[in-house]
């Protein structure tokens, strides 16, 4: 069953066409990874899906509803949660307060404070600490936990390994593996190809705002993706 459908999406930053006619579907329970070089339009695409950046053209349907022009808070209430690049935590609030804000979406589901602290045990000892005093890995875990507290049907993860130590990345990806095992639908934007391929059912490679390669992870080779990543060779045919 298709949960998210994106058709001919165009998103601009001023005069720059950051996303150019992108179309794809995401099925319920699927994990899709977007890869591509810096400036490929991945983050803009994710923000457009979450409603943080309104598109100039195209259509975004979520759970059968057209949400193209819906503001971000309505999309969050519909079940789309974004873990933004740079975490964007509320630094003056404690970890628990950051997590509890996720309840504002008003969605019912399995995720509550206890469930999040159980899924992300590294947060338990720091739950009363201010978010601004945490390490990058701890902040990323809070950002993921906060998104989970909205009880999302679709979780958007933007560059979650950016700036983290290898140990912290391992912890974050262990948490993602748990979410995938629980049947959460995930769209992941990731620079680290190996990490993305280790968790994604499907890979979509973007270059200069367009999709240049798409296919099941099991059917794509690392070389194919690397070529598409850097815009080398003929990679226009989608698998």
């Amino acid at each position, binding site marked *: 069953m298709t949960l998210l459908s994106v058709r001919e999406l165009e998103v601009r930053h001023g005069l720059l066409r950051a996303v150019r006619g992108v179309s794809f579907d995401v099925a319920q329970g699927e994990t899709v990874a977007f890869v591509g070089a810096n400036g490929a339009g991945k983050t803009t695409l994710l923000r457009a899906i979450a409603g943080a950046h309104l598109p100039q053209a195209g259509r975004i349907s979520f759970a059968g509803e057209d949400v193209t022009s819906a503001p*971000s808070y309505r999309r969050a209430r519909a079940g789309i949660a974004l873990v933004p690049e740079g975490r*964007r935590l509320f630094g003056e609030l404690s970890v628990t307060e950051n997590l509890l*804000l996720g309840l504002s979406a008003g969605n019912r589901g399995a995720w509550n404070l206890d469930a999040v602290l159980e899924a992300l045990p590294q947060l338990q000892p720091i739950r009363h600490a201010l978010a601004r005093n945490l390490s990058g890995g701890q902040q990323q875990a809070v950002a993921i936990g906060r998104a989970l507290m909205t009880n999302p049907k679709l979780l958007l993860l933007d560059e979650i390994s950016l700036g983290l130590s290898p140990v912290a990345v391992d912890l974050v990806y262990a948490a993602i593996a748990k979410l995938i095992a629980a049947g959460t639908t995930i769209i992941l934007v990731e620079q680290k190809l190996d990490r993305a391929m280790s968790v994604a059912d499907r890979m979509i490679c973007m270059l200069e705002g367009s999709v240049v390669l798409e296919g099941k992870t099991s059917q794509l080779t690392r070389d194919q993706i690397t070529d598409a990543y850097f815009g080398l060779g003929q990679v226009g045919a989608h698998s």
Partner: protein
Amino acid sequence: MIWVEQIFQGILLGGYYALIACGLSFMFSVMGLVNLAHGSFAMLAAFGFWALAEYAGLPPTIGWTAVFPAMALLGVALQRLVLDRSARSGFLIPVLATFGLSICIDNLLFQQFGADTRSLAPFIGDLSYDSWELADGVFVGKLAVYIFLAAVGLLGGLQLFLSRTQLGRAIRATAIDRDTVGLLGIDANWINICATAIAMVTVSIAGAALGMRATFDPYAGTPQLIFAFEAAVIGGTGSLWGTLLGGLTLGIAQSVGAQISPQGFLIAGHATFLVVLVARTSLDRIADVWRIFSFVRTKAS
């Protein structure tokens, strides 16, 4: 003994300043807005209490049931029609908009009620002049104590509300990053409406306090705005407990100044405000210079 009494009176006066500064500080911390119509709204609320008492026979102890909701609704309209729209044009436009609004409110009150000074004291019985004798020759007015307790209760209640409730957390988060709260299902516009409504209720409480402890007229809002502004700045704009501290500092300074000289009441208050302002900016610069010096010294060694 006279100095002890003056300081005590200053503390109680500071409670009133904290009360009137509360809404100003709250709006600044949540929306980053300096509401120049703050004093005028306090006068509007005071006249609301007075009109209910004078024409409908409802004393302030009952009148608040009408004034508080009316001012909260006015806050909703203010946010939706003025502040939200003007905020899209940058920082200065909302400030100018509230300045224009204060002129409109002052003159509408003047047109409606004339230039006569009014007071709510006749409607609260002997509370307006009743007092307790703490020690030999040291008296405190009951009303002043109640206003002080109201200020502490209001600021404490707001602090609890902001830290313990979901709406309070959403207000604090919106103040930090209004784009990101949307990703969590929070409508930032609605949060600002709630915050403005809360600020207007606190303004109403301050208006009632002013009306009961002193006289007021349609143009009395500007001095109240200045006192509120000074208390908020002295205490650290945006901090609720800081606002209480700022109010107390201003009240004590004015009270002690009045003891020194009859003209010292206002001068001492303004001077304290300026000293704190200059000290704060100077300390910030000294801290910056010290950081640069420490950095250079570390690099050199």
